[in-house]
């Protein structure tokens, strides 16, 4: 179920660990699988477990413990907003409210066209740049005031 490209990435992760500790690569492999598929369906988790020679339940435990794995389909763009205290002091709550107004969905919801999923996140370690978002787990956006939010949404084609 994984492309040759994804399998090559898996192999590179496994090589970081001692030969008898392949399970160590599970977090990275699940992240690669999610990047390739958009989310983590049960077959993908099982596929990663089989690749690493570990019980599927152990891989599922990992996938369900860490909150950047998506065990349900998400929109093309998943925007996670930090509302933790340091961000909230500098507009984190309001940035989230503005996004909800613009997209017409609440936290944990996806727009009807399947384009955006909105999530409320915990500390991203960028509190000096608040308000802060992460798009698709990969790209961090700083100082997200209304003008910057408008621009971000326009860029998400």
């Amino acid at each position: 179920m994984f492309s040759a490209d994804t399998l090559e990435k898996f192999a590179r992760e496994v090589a970081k660990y001692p030969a008898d500790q392949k399970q160590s690569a599970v977090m990275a492999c699940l992240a690669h699988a999610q990047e390739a598929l958009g989310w983590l369906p049960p077959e993908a988790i099982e596929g990663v477990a089989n690749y690493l020679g570990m019980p599927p339940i152990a891989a599922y435990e990992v996938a369900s413990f860490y909150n950047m794995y998506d065990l349900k389909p998400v929109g093309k763009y998943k925007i996670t907003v930090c509302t933790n205290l340091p961000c909230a002091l500098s507009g984190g709550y309001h940035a989230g409210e503005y996004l909800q107004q613009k997209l017409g969905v609440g936290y944990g919801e996806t727009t009807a066209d399947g384009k955006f999923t909105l999530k409320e996140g915990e500390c991203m370690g960028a509190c000096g740049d608040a308000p802060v978002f992460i798009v698709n787990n990969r790209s961090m956006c700083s100082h997200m005031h209304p003008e910057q939010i408008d621009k971000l949404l326009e860029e998400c084609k």
Partner: protein
Amino acid sequence: MAMLGAITPVLMAGLDGDNSWSLKDYVARGGYEQLKRILINKMTQEDVIGEVKKSVLRGRGGAGFPTGLKWSFMPRSFPGDKYVVCNTDEGEPGTFKDRDIMRYNPHAVIEGMAIAAFAMGANRGYNYVHGEIWELYKRFEAALDEARAAGFIGQNILGSGFNFELFAHHGYGAYICGEETALLESIEGKKGQPRFKPPFPASFGLYGKPTTINNTETFASIPFILKMGGEEFLNLGKPNNGGTKLFSVSGHVNRPGNYEIPLGTPFATLLEMCGGMRGGRKLKAVIPGGSSAPVMPADVIMDCTMDYDSISKGGSMLGSGAVIVMDETVCMVKALERLSFFYHEESCGQCTPCREGTAWMYKVVHRIENGQGRPEDIDLLNSVLGNIAGRTICALGDAAAFPVQSFLKHFGSEFEYHIEHKTCLVPKDVQWAGSGFHKIPA
């Protein structure tokens, strides 16, 4: 970059180039010279650890444990694999210093880890990087490739016979993995649930092998300590609080950001470096060491200097050096509600007092904030927190209890006001204005 106005920067000196993170720039700044000196001049492991001890470098991740002492716990002659692990799982609310070290000076971390590995006889290492800073995880991997190609890590480093393989491992959203044994579980490909200690990682760590875990800033300080000598590094700070430290300042200041200052610098000086209070408003409270540190009222923190001992005497802890500044527009009930939600959300669920207690604390603070508080709620909160602190495997339980305890202690009257009047002392529009969020265009 937000290193404005740093006094005598050490770790972050000379980082104004366009590619300060590249190997070429790091070497031009004198990078990898200390690793070379140690390996080529055949310094002993004791010499290196001795220099670190002299510097009185204290762990920069939060606990402030003396680094040199920690290193001396490693059984250097233990046969087989030994590990050094770097904790870049920076998720303590308010903390964003390791992100800037990774962004601008990743090779200092690599050199520090290689020196640490030499000193402790370790042959493998991992840097565990917060999943949220993906771009910097990739940058660190690129830095590892450069260092490997240049022969600073890998087999037979600089022809010395010393081997050290180093890799990056990323997290994927779990605050608890900043706890060192949860982090080890996570590298082993499991849920990040802390281990019971003892055994400590120095005897039973990653894959059951001797392991030492230090924070990113701690490792990044090592080359500079060896360059200037432990004693000179110590003298940059004050006795028992050696060196400079990065402080991440967030919240209601004009210029939030990272500031590298000598330990022992007055809080008032740091506040001035940040451009003072936003809008010239009055300082109300400061959380001086990340969200887990007890909150300090303005008059107490204004008399403190920024170092482990002074902040501890003031009733809090320096922690990770994350300074969360709050002005008079803050509702302390709402502030605590958000922190309590965080600990409830991030409790790993292993210990009952923490799993259940954090849920209760959030629930009760939430109802007070939302006008449904009951007169007995303050006693209830004190009772719940007292049943969490000290009764869990790891420090997350304490970390969840301290904010509640200190907010009630110093700002209890605001909680009482909320309960009695079913509303906040600080009007909502004043709170909004305090956030500095640009008004939504009509």
